[in-house]
């Protein structure tokens, strides 16, 4: 077994694009779930909307990429308004059911052969990110710190990605510190009390849904841009729950919670993945017990188990504060 390789991969997974994507979408979920108490189980729908919005506008209408990004965000905003309008006046679980259903509606629709002309069907779309590559100012070669080495394209993706993460964190930090953010937290604690104070709870919840959804879309747009393709099979409902694990692991309602959570999540996932595969290759785990194809399923099982254990034993995660946690309420 090559332990250096395993640790190498695990550490670099903590800063690779996957960690960035889940950090940003978990920051969005943090606005929904951590600060406002909204149960959005369809964050993956926002990722998909953003990604497809950007890709389709670039391919169909020849938008420059930056305009495609803006269009993707705009689509996510409309999506949030559409989902929020019927559900935000109702009990919390209705939003949960509707968002998870809407994510599936979107995924099934873009997969449908009837829309293949526009969405590419189950093959998805590619060829929309030429601007992205030509923007890369880094000359070819290897970049990295210490033993972590990345190609020029990867380094460019990682740099832009972490800039986006930091900007998102800053945005959420400033907003949550503002009077607006205090109203959100108050809604999380006691909606009726806020309403009694004359605040328009519905409008605040809607703003929160739009903000978090746009952050989700930003993650989705970044995802498709750095990956150079958008494929419907990447948007299964399980992805939302990964983001939840990142969020709860790091600490709900904490500014850095989702970022730390996502980095640790991907390091752990990559570690188990690499470890299991190498152990199978080296013969420590017999092939009849665990097939290499089953490693992906082990990872999903771990995510489920992780969610259960976290919520039973440490619902506040790593950074969290138990007092500031709507999980315990009701």
């Amino acid at each position: 077994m090559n332990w250096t390789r395993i640790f190498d991969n695990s550490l670099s997974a903590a800063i690779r694009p996957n960690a960035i994507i889940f950090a940003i979408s978990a920051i969005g979920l943090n606005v929904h779930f951590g600060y406002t108490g909204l149960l959005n189980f369809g964050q993956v729908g926002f990722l998909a909307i953003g990604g497809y919005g950007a890709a389709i506008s670039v391919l169909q209408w020849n938008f420059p990429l930056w305009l495609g990004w803006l269009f993707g965000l705009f689509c996510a905003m409309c999506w949030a308004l559409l989902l929020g309008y019927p559900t935000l006046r109702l009990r919390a679980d209705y939003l949960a059911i509707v968002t998870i259903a809407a994510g599936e509606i979107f995924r099934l629709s873009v997969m449908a052969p009837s829309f293949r002309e526009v969405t590419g069907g189950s093959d998805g779309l590619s060829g929309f990110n030429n601007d992205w590559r030509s923007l890369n100012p880094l000359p070819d070669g290897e970049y990295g710190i210490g033993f972590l080495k990345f190609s020029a394209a990867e380094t460019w993706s990682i740099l832009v990605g972490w800039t986006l993460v930091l900007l998102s964190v800053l945005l959420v930090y400033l907003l949550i510190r503002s009077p607006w953010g205090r109203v959100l937290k108050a809604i999380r604690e006691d909606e009726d009390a806020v309403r009694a104070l004359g605040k328009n709870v519905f409008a605040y919840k809607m703003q929160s849904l739009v903000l978090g959804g746009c952050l989700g879309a930003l993650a989705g747009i970044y995802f498709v841009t750095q990956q150079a393709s958008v494929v419907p099979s990447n948007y299964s409902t399980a992805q939302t729950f990964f983001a939840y694990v990142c969020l709860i692991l790091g600490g709900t309602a904490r500014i850095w919670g989702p970022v730390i959570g996502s980095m640790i999540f991907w390091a752990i996932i990559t570690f188990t993945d690499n470890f299991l595969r190498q152990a199978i290759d080296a013969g420590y785990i017999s092939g009849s017990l665990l097939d290499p194809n089953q490693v992906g399923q082990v990872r999903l099982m771990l995510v489920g188990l992780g969610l259960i254990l976290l919520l039973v034993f440490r619902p506040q995660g790593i950074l969290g504060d138990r007092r500031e946690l709507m999980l315990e309420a009701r």
Partner: protein
Amino acid sequence: MTNKVVALGALLVALVLGAAAAAGAQEPPTTTTTAPGGTTETTLAGQPSPTGESVRGTMFYNDENDEKVLVADVEVRIDDAAGNEIATVTTDEEGVFQVALPGPGSYTATIDPDTLPDGISMRDKDRLTLSFDMSTGQTRNLLYPLQSGEGGGRSSSSFFDRALRLLVEGIRFGLIIAMCAIGLSLIYGTTGLTNFAHGEMVTFGAIVAWVFNVTWHWPFIASAIIAILISIAMGFGLDRFFWRPLRNRGTGLIAMLVIAIGLGLLVRYMFQFQFGGFNEAYRQYTLQKGLKFGPVTIVPRDLIGMGLSILVLVGVATFLQKTRMGKAMRAVADNKDLAESSGIDVDRVIGFVWASGAGLAALGGILQGLSEQVSFQMGFQLLLLMFAGVTLGGLGTAYGALVGSLVVGMAMELSSLWIPTEFKTVVALSILIIVLLVRPQGILGQAERVG
């Protein structure tokens, strides 16, 4: 208390793994079939796989009864980007071909139209040759929808006949959703928990029955009964040793909801781990000759399944209405504290709800597995439809779940009169959203103003 939680988690895991290990034992992990509207793959962003790249595809068409027919012995040639032939393969009797590719890159797959059976053609002529890109470690599924006849696609039967056929199919499916959803609704009503792991109870029943029937060669009916009994025990145990300790600990509803999601995820992929990612049929009653009633053809298993569903649902309604336990269940759903103070043992009622809900879900799963096929995510695919049915009828009411599920089932099937069948699920989920917009309390629910 926490020790108990852990112990029962371990017990549950052991039970599931044990049952599924048997299922996995005789399963060669080679083929996959893709359900027409469903999905088979859960791909993670950039999931690395050292297993090499491969492409597979499924050939099928729908006959005049809308039954899926798999097409064997069709020749497919795979070329790389430079036009060099990689392989020429033919589909097996399940209509599946699979080719391992030398590495990442662009490829094309071309069907030889001469090898298609007579009277069968591509629904979309452009899809004879498909180009696709493979990234490292990717496995790709290509879908080849065929049609009988050269053009037009649909058979010549009249609109009314087709509507009638779809209506019957919709009622069958609606009844199954209803059976699964009643437990979901009652659990919600009595405990407030939106059980996101309910779909896995459906799959559990279907898979346990499959293990008895196919692996251990029991007769199907005996397997089904055993599976339902095991599911009832599992549902009861799940409440007694998992959810009740959590409730007593004072775990919040939202936390329990996320725990249910985690549990669902864990169990679902445990099923896939042992059972594989493909669809399996039961050993018996798979090939049956349809009975004709006017324009409607129905296979006996579906007819009996529908009769059984109606019987069971009427039984559940009578039970809720007439028996002491049934009344207690409704009382707890209505107002838990009041029920408790009037001497009802709430924990016992909730245990009963879990047990019966699991039993109903298992029956629903077995019937669905019988008329379609058993797969590790059949329950999860039903879950969203159950939510649609339950919300449509009114969350927390048993009768509402019944009515709502029937409406969802029929709407899904009838929608294919006007729009392509691939949008069936989309229709059901859209109904869900529209209902919330117009009548959030559902058809039978009581209005409750929030905000």
